[in-house]
């Protein structure tokens, strides 16, 4: 379970995240929806322990992500918004490196690596250096190394950016399978369709604040429109009273 409680983050004059609270439960996919610059990435960075909050707390399964960073980080797998790979290493070496950093070794590490390579259908690319990989192939490497330790919680920052339809489908399939296994998944996106197709709960963020949250139906209801995209636009434009 992932919890954001009144998170505030300021960068000099700009308040990027201004009192954000939400909860992402186990066995659910929660979508953090908002236009560019709404504060989604900043909120996620605080949740995976790389940014400190000016106030408020970020908790992973009850562990404070900022005070007990290493412990909280061991409970999550994440795809941040920058996904650089090491050009001279193979896909398998990437997965193994992160597995070793997470404390796996020997046979257990091999089994886990091979399992992920199988699930993500990357047998053919597993032992190739990643230098010439397509966006879809790079995404698979990133997912595999984020999942090598079998985390209960998964955070993904705009995971479908730059992916084609096939790769997007693979990703969706992967996330749905994780959800089925009772994992907690939090992803951010600025694409309405993606969120509505995948997410059980939606948190709409605009200008650093949560302007609405709930199931897709609840969101439509609170915005007073049948169309989710219209709801998003009206909510994102700062119609706070309607929603809260």
């Amino acid at each position, binding site marked *: 379970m992932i919890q954001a409680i009144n998170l505030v983050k300021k960068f000099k004059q700009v308040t990027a995240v201004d009192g954000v609270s939400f909860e992402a439960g186990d066995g659910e996919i929660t979508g953090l929806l908002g236009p560019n610059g709404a504060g989604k990435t900043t909120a996620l*960075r605080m949740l*995976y*322990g*790389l*940014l*400190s909050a000016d106030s408020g707390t970020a908790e992973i399964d009850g562990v404070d992500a900022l005070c007990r*960073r*290493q*412990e*909280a*980080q*061991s*409970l*999550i797998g*994440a795809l*941040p*918004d*920058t*996904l*650089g*790979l*090491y*050009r*001279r*290493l193979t896909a398998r*070496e990437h997965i193994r*490196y*992160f597995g*070793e*950093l*997470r*404390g*796996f070794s020997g046979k257990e590490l091999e089994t886990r690596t091979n399992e992920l390579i199988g699930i993500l259908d990357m047998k053919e690319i597993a032992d190739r250096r990643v230098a010439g990989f397509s966006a879809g192939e790079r995404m698979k490497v*990133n997912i595999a*190394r984020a999942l090598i*330790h*079998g*985390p*209960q919680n998964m955070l993904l920052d705009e995971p479908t950016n730059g992916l084609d339809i096939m790769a997007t489908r693979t990703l969706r399939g992967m996330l749905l399978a994780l959800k089925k296994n009772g994992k907690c998944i939090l992803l951010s996106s600025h694409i309405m369709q993606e969120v509505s197709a995948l997410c059980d709960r939606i948190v709409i963020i605009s200008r650093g604040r949560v302007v609405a949250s709930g199931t897709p139906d609840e969101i439509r209801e609170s915005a007073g429109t049948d169309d989710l995209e219209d709801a998003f636009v009206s909510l994102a434009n700062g119609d706070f009273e309607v929603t809260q």
Partner: protein
Amino acid sequence: MTIKTLSVWRSIKVVLKKEAKDGLRDWKAIIIALLIPAMGPLMIIWMFSTLADVSEEPEYVTLPVVGSENAPHLISWLEQNGITIHDPPDNPRERVRDSIIDMAMVIPDDYQKKISDGKRVTIEFITNSEDRSTGAAAEKITGLVERYGAQIGMLRLLARGVNPEIASPMEVKEVDASKGNAFARDILIIVPLYVCLAAFVCSMMVAVDITAGERERGSIETLLLNPNPRIAFVLGKYLTAVAFSIAGLILTATGSLAVLDYLPVEELGIAISINSRTFAYLVITVLPLALMASGLMILVSSLARSYKESQATLSFITLLPVIPVFIENVGPTGSWMYAIPIFSQQRLLVDAFAGEIPPNLHFILSGVVSVIIAAVAVCLTTRLFHKESFIFGR
């Protein structure tokens, strides 16, 4: 659900293993890292070959002479002393200038007459000073002619009843009291210089790649998502750079000493004893410098905003070992000098090569200062790795 966190030491090992593997696959970095270990020994061979040419006793000297029939005695004197006389080509001056022939001599037609009259004869000896390889031969001929002339002068004085010593009141006798010669002095600077350079240059590319490169590729954020202590990432990367540095300095030391051992340097009058002790002393002296160089490069490269910026800054840092060569023998000296890194290591090695084992204090001072600087650099880099602006800012 498995919760595992690695200890600092095991984390360092994992990071070091990955970075070393990654670094060794970067052939561009490897080529640059091998530059210094290759250049050091080549430099010595080159210096040796040019010097050996000049100082070799010319065995077979030929001399084209214009007007050799004018001075049969002089010619036979030269021939007795191993000079082969040739008939001259046309335009000897131009030919010497164009390096077609090495040198030429012109004996004037009035030679015999002037000698008989007790007058001064001018003999023209054409050489090309740009051509260093003929310097020794030219010197030999000049010496022979001068000695011949001096003998005639002495005979003239004797014929007039004058003691020849009156005309030459002074005699200069050269006594070379130096331990070696110019070559030995250069070697004494070149070997320590290259070994120190290797400590810097050999880890430069790797240091850039694992810090500025990691940030520019956008892989630092994903890396730091792993639940390991930040200092483990820094130390793993730092030790990778150190490993490259040490490998480079050992290669350079091995190559340079092997070349010195192989070349017949003793023919040049240099006595450098090369054995495993020399090698060990060389490596152990420069080792702290490798620690310092890697630390500085990791720090500076982490501060850089981009790969290119970091490379540009580091190429200045790698030039630091050259500075002591310029300030050598300038200013006051004393034990405090050994507190200046780079300078102190080169000084210690020059002393050792010259046969003076420096006091232990100097050795320890030199090492301790470098290690302290290394430690400070690693601490500062670790602080950087905790900064949000470092992880996300470019």
